[in-house]
């Protein structure tokens, strides 16, 4: 199929072919960006549709004020390139954060500012072509939106925000990784209501099994509270915690029980998945996921939203529940590590320092640490049960991304890029610590770091969540 042919039905096909610059066929797009699209979602003239969507987004959102600022002030000093682990690895100009952001900013300048519109008419070749849009689709998913570069921009440009907006525009014309769409569709519109499309009976079975496991390991009866009304916390974790990362979930349940909050939390059987891919590519999805969480909190009359070990689920809830959940009346958002840390400071939780004897290091998930929100809390907890804790450098606010941020970890086709390009510095960092355990309190980071270790020959490393080790080390009276 020739792209664009459908939008001009009155002109004979041969004439049209002579008039138009050669367009990319959808097969060619498929070939180059096999993971990005679903075939039936690409239709019509890409540039025109891109501009329509961009215009609609600028009209209805708050992006215009910031994009207009960014379009005018960049000094192109390339300080951001020093902070970007991708550029540091590839040395390719298209990986300089400022260059990447400029792809979208240039579209804004050309089509949404007076000077740009004059320029666009004076030039023979238009800026926005199918090729240009595909370059954006490719490059904005090479960025992991870790936002490390924003710490280095003297002019305060948030390249993570530009990546988010560019992906949002692209997603509305159908250019979005298939993996993200399929997961989100299952979560918001499927019968299972979670990104992995696991039916509730399977999850319920799994929880029952975990209760038995806990009893076998710790000789205590801990119940996973399901659909209990009037609890203080309603709990959302990435759905993978319910099956693949069950140790994390067991650790959380045992910890909450030990600190006297066993009867203060609940899981909702209707919607339990904290994953929110909207943060990566669409405000529309972001809002829908968060509204589900707030609705469940209302349904079960919970006062607060508790998020498990997941970076983007935590950040999206922390930053946007207020926005979409009723402003000041919205339920407060707490991350499980904050809760455990507070209990630890109050002396409600004790650890046996002789259980975890291996060397441990801690990976900061970007979405928790970049803003300085959760940096010291997990470290204090780790030091309490582990004698051999080694920091990665740089860490904390200045951490390096695991390499799978911004949803890219879900895209299997990107694995070589994720583990050998973006994640290679992370592999070096981990190797330098000599640690056996890498604690990564984030489902995305955990999956990615396991692949990084596999692909970079770090065979002795075990990637775990924080509560996995707490589960081992906690002392129960």
């Amino acid at each position, binding site marked *: 199929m020739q792209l664009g042919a459908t939008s001009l039905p009155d002109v004979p096909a041969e004439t049209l072919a002579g008039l138009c610059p050669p367009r990319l066929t959808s097969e060619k797009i498929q070939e180059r960006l096999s993971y990005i699209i679903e075939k039936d979602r690409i239709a019509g003239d890409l540039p025109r549709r891109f501009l*329509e*969507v961009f215009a*609609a*987004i600028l*009209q*209805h*959102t*708050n*992006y*215009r*004020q*910031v*994009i*207009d*600022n*960014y379009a*005018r*002030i*960049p*000094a*192109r*000093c*390339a*300080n951001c*390139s*020093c902070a970007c682990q991708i*550029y540091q690895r590839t*040395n390719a*100009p298209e990986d*300089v954060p400022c*260059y990447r952001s*400029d792809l979208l900013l240039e579209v804004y300048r050309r089509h949404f500012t007076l*000077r740009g519109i004059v320029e666009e008419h004076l030039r023979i070749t238009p800026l926005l072509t199918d090729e240009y849009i595909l370059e954006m689709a490719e490059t904005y998913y090479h960025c992991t939106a870790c936002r490390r570069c*924003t710490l280095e921009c*003297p*002019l*305060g*440009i*948030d390249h993570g*925000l530009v990546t988010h*907006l560019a992906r949002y525009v692209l997603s*509305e014309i159908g250019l979005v990784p298939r993996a993200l*769409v399929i997961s*989100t*569709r299952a979560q*918001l*519109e499927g019968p299972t209501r979670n990104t992995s499309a696991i039916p509730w009976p399977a999850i319920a079975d799994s929880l029952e099994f975990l209760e038995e496991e806990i009893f076998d390991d710790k000789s205590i009866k801990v119940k996973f509270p399901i659909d209990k009304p009037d609890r203080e916390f309603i709990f959302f974790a990435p759905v993978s915690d319910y099956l693949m990362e069950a140790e994390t979930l067991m650790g959380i349940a045992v910890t909450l029980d030990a600190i006297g909050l066993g009867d203060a939390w609940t899981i909702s059987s209707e919607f339990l998945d904290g994953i929110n891919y909207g943060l990566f590519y*669409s*405000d*529309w*999805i*972001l*809002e*829908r996921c968060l509204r589900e969480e707030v609705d469940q909190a209302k349904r079960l009359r919970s006062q607060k939203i508790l998020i498990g070990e997941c970076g983007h689920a935590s950040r999206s809830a922390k*930053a*946007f529940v*207020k*926005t*979409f959940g009723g*402003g000041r009346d919205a339920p407060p958002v707490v991350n499980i590590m904050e809760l455990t840390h507070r209990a630890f400071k109050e002396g409600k939780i004790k650890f046996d320092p002789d259980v975890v004897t291996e060397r441990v290091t801690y990976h900061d998930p970007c979405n928790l640490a970049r803003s300085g929100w959760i940096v010291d809390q997990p470290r204090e907890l780790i030091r309490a049960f582990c004698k051999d804790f080694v920091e990665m450098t740089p860490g904390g606010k200045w951490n390096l991304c695991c390499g799978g941020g911004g949803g890219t970890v879900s895209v299997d086709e990107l694995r070589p890029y994720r583990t050998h390009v973006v994640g290679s510095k992370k592999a070096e960092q981990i190797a330098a610590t000599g640690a056996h355990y890498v604690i990564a309190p984030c489902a995305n980071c955990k999956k990615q770091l396991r692949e990084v270790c596999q692909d970079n020959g770090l065979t002795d490393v075990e990637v775990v969540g924080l509560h996995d080790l707490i589960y081992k080390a906690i002392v129960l009276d």
Partner: protein
Amino acid sequence: MLESWIALARGPLLRLALFAMALGLLRHVLLQVWEIFWALRRAGDQVVPWGLALRRNLEWLLPWRYLQRKERRLYNFTSFIFHVGVIVVPVFLAGHVAIWQQELGISWWRLPGSVADWLAVATVVAAVGLLLGRMLNQASRTISKPQDWLLPLLCAVPFVTGFWVAHPSWSPLGLQAVYLVHLLSAELLILLVPFSKLVHMVLFWTSQTSSELGWRFPPGSGERVRLSLGKDSEGV
């Protein structure tokens, strides 16, 4: 002949350039403030960390932030010196204050002549340093646009010629010719401010706030975008 040109450059042209700059900058500021006001009105979460944004602005204005960096320390420090020069000399040089007094009717502190001399030299050196830094850094070099190369050069011209005006014995050209070049280059620069990246002199102050506000979404905006695109009945 040159005298009438100088009179023109010193009087009407200077006034025109300054007026155009003021008008252009005012437009940018008003638009930006207007946009920020509306963004704030529409945001679902209206708590904006103004203090944090201001602190980040100030952090980047002071050199200690650059000196802590591991990479490109010299380049960033050069940039700091350059910015001090291009702000302080035009505004506080004794000869300039006299012009401001004549044109605007107000007067302020004057920079001692010897300090001005050194600062002018430092600014020119810094401008060359910035160009070198841009040239020698692969990332910066490849993403640079024409204005990134031309503006530091253009900034250096009024400083070099201004120095020659103050010290005619160093000048390779006659005083009047140098003075005319000084005036015209400065006016061109002033005129370009609203139309080039130099506009960051005013937009810099809101960029941190804008970034924070960019993440303050209006509730329902995603739905409205879908509606206006005629995609309201489509699923994910």
